[in-house]
């Protein structure tokens, strides 16, 4: 195992790239994928700390995060498909039905 600093920086890099993806992209599906990237960055952190302290609770948490990410991706994509059926578009700035 490398020193904790390495893993912290790796996860920070992935987190920031995910943030850029969420803020910048127009396509909602790519935004959802960037959110998955953010969750992965957090997973790396958790697993690293679980390894350092020898406590398996971090890995249990990661398992729950993965399950939660699956649920969120499924529902989110369901919403995207429902929206696409109405508006023929998946671009974020065209989802403005609630704008006043």
């Amino acid at each position, binding site marked *: 195992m490398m020193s904790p600093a390495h893993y912290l920086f790796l996860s920070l890099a992935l987190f920031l790239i995910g943030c850029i993806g969420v803020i910048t992209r127009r396509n909602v599906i*790519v935004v959802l994928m960037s959110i998955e990237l953010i969750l992965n960055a957090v997973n790396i952190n958790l697993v690293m700390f679980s390894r350092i302290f020898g406590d398996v609770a971090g890995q249990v948490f990661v398992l729950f995060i993965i399950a939660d990410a699956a649920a969120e991706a499924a529902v989110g994509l369901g919403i995207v498909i429902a929206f696409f059926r109405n508006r023929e578009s998946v671009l974020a700035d065209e989802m403005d039905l609630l704008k006043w």
Partner: protein
Amino acid sequence: MLDSVLFYTFGGVAVLSAALMITRRDPLHSAVFLITTLLATGEIFLQLRADFLFVAQIILYACGIMVLFLFVIMLVRVDAAVPQMRFRVQKLGALAVVFALGFEVLVILFSADKLPGEGLFVQEIAAAGKLPPNSEALARSLFTTYSLPFEMAGVLLLVAIVGAVVMAKSRNRMDES
């Protein structure tokens, strides 16, 4: 030495594919690069002696969630030539936010006397040979200490299945049934 070679290779692959993922025009290419990022992250788990999570990451994330994403991308195919990032202000704003966040985190990490992570109060990292077998320890913890969150995760997945099917079902069929 093997450790650092593996870490830099797969860490580099992860960061590179992530950067490629957010800059592709075609969402399908983004999905493919996310798959490589997930596989590289899985290898980082393996290096940290979390072998069950390595396998879980591949089966659940790379083969489960990403297949879901690929299906949806293929179904909602829009013209890939549409410019994906129209507003320049948005790009600058994103970079500003990210730099601010990154700078803040780095300041916090470096503000201690030691390098990030070396100030931890743990005396030493548990030697790899003395760790209990990963799957057994994980299973024991999951079914005894954390059994309630485990059951709740199951209910959450059930609710998500029902919700996703309801959301994605075609309108005509819903009126019929």
